[in-house]
């Protein structure tokens, strides 16, 4: 049956292409008239935020899928498994430290982690890399230092709590996770042919795939930003543990980049430093845009387990580090 479907789609089916081309031409012709239909202020605010999230993530996504394409084209299957320590528990901290060296954004690290798993990296190590790369790289740490001037302990606490989160989740996944949950990434069809063709096909596939899920995440994040009034935050600002949880949930809902979140955290003046740290540790590890990207790359069953696990570990790690250091 699969063969029949593939035979059918092999025929020059240009309907979708024609529809898309037609829509683009129509859009250009009707631009000024249609623009006035979408004039409601709240709709404009929503669409500005939606497009901002998409555009902000796009360069990092393109970079991430290019790296993913390079891995597929140049790295032989299973080579990555051989680079890491044979003991999967020891591979986790190695992956965490690899994430420190790679300045990236959370959107770019999802396709890279998916490709690493497809190329034979053990899933706990790949997931640790996924969590560490956007959270503890030099760019993020410098941004945090700028947002919290004169408070290097906040930078140190962020580094420690995020790295701890990434490694603890990796080790927990080693014990609790099931390999079949990341099967979708492992099962991915690898294009064959010349190296440049493998690169092109992999990059295009990952870009379309991750790009589609990025749109899902951006739709949700923009809607939450516009619909949920920020005044709900004022109610819990000085409520201790509740405030920590509130900012952790806010980090999931806002889905802002790890390079920017320190400035937003610093501006939430009514909250304790512990709550701000929870915001900084949770944001790059689990937010609504990332959940969509991970569901797309690894499957929904994976995301449904991985996101809550990461959230709990991140909040616990932020609270512990804060109690010791801040």
């Amino acid at each position: 049956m699969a063969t029949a479907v593939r035979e059918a789609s092999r025929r020059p089916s240009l309907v979708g292409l024609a529809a898309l081309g037609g829509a683009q031409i129509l859009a250009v012709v009707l631009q000024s008239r249609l623009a006035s239909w979408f004039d409601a202020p709240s709709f404009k605010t929503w669409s500005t935020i939606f497009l901002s999230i998409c555009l902000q993530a796009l360069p990092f996504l393109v970079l991430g899928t290019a790296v993913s394409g390079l891995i597929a084209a140049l790295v032989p299957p299973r080579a990555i498994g051989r680079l890491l320590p044979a003991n999967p528990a020891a591979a986790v901290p190695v992956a965490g430290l690899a994430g420190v060296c790679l300045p990236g954004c959370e959107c770019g690290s999802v396709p890279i982690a998916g490709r690493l798993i497809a190329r034979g990296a053990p899933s706990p190590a790949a997931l640790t890399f996924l969590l560490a790369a956007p959270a503890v790289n030099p760019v993020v740490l410098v941004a945090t230092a700028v947002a919290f001037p004169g408070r290097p302990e906040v930078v140190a606490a962020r580094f420690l709590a995020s790295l701890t989160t990434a490694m603890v989740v990796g080790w927990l996944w080693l014990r609790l996770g099931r390999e079949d949950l990341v099967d979708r990434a492992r099962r991915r069809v690898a294009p064959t042919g010349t190296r440049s063709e493998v690169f092109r096909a992999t990059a295009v596939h990952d870009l379309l795939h991750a790009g589609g899920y990025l749109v899902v995440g951006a739709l949700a994040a923009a809607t939450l930003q516009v619909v949920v009034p920020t005044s709900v935050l004022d109610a819990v600002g000085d409520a201790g543990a509740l405030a920590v949880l509130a900012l952790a949930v806010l980090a999931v809902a806002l889905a802002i980049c790890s390079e920017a979140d320190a400035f937003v955290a610093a501006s939430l003046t009514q909250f304790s430093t512990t709550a701000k740290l929870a915001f900084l540790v949770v944001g790059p590890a689990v937010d609504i845009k990332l959940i969509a990207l991970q569901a797309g790359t690894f499957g929904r069953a994976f995301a449904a387990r991985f996101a809550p696990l990461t959230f709990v570990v991140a909040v616990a790690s932020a609270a512990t580090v804060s109690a010791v250091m801040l």
Partner: protein
Amino acid sequence: VNGPTQGVLLAGTGTVVARLAATGAYLNYLKEGMRFPLLAAGLAMVALGTLTLVRALVPDDEIPDDAAPDDAAPDDAAPGDPPDREDHPGGHVHHDHHAHGGPRVAWLLVLPLLGLLLIVPGPLGADAARRDTTAAAPPRAEWSRFAPLAAPRDGAVDLPLGVFLSRAYYDDDDSLGGVPVRLTGFVVADPAIPDGYRLTRYLLTCCAADAMPLQVVVQGLGSPPPADDTWLEVVGTWVPPADPTAEGVDRGAVLAVTSQVEIPPPANPYE
């Protein structure tokens, strides 16, 4: 999403994105430093899309069979392994879902594309500022002494709203006292300020999703405030806090206006 459509989708999105970066319209959504990454990403998408389109339209018999991307073995199969589909019971479904190599979810990329072609929303304005009720403060400087203000131009010192707010909140020496300053922002009317409005400009770190409204209360207008989202250059002097013991954000930021001019929206609407 079949091969040719993938190509058109990527090249179309890439063209629109590259055009945003080239014309400067991206400034409504992103920080200035994002221009080059955005342009590079757009051009890369155009290149990838064009290649994909060309490859999809080349007749099948000109492509060697083993190069067809949809016929490949799963990644983890070693090169010598025979393609054993029984090992991957989900594989068939996967292939059906990904008819001809393209994930169906990619259709959603049409949404931002249409948004950039049809809606073309402007920068965040008064509507967004009303939703954001938390008082935003620029990061508190570790020093409490500020450098002397720049020389005045036409009798007033030009100051970004963020700098005005930092000095109003944190400057122990009250360097703003008695100095005419010129601020640029847009109007957000507030019923609680009958004699004025909130002069507002957003502070961006990366993109409009992380924007924070910087707001100065402008008072002493003597006339009804201009319409929401009107861009103004306002000249006036800082009003010291009523409570001299107040600290930080609680000191407030109020400007007694002496003159204001309507200006066209600046190329970069954010600070």
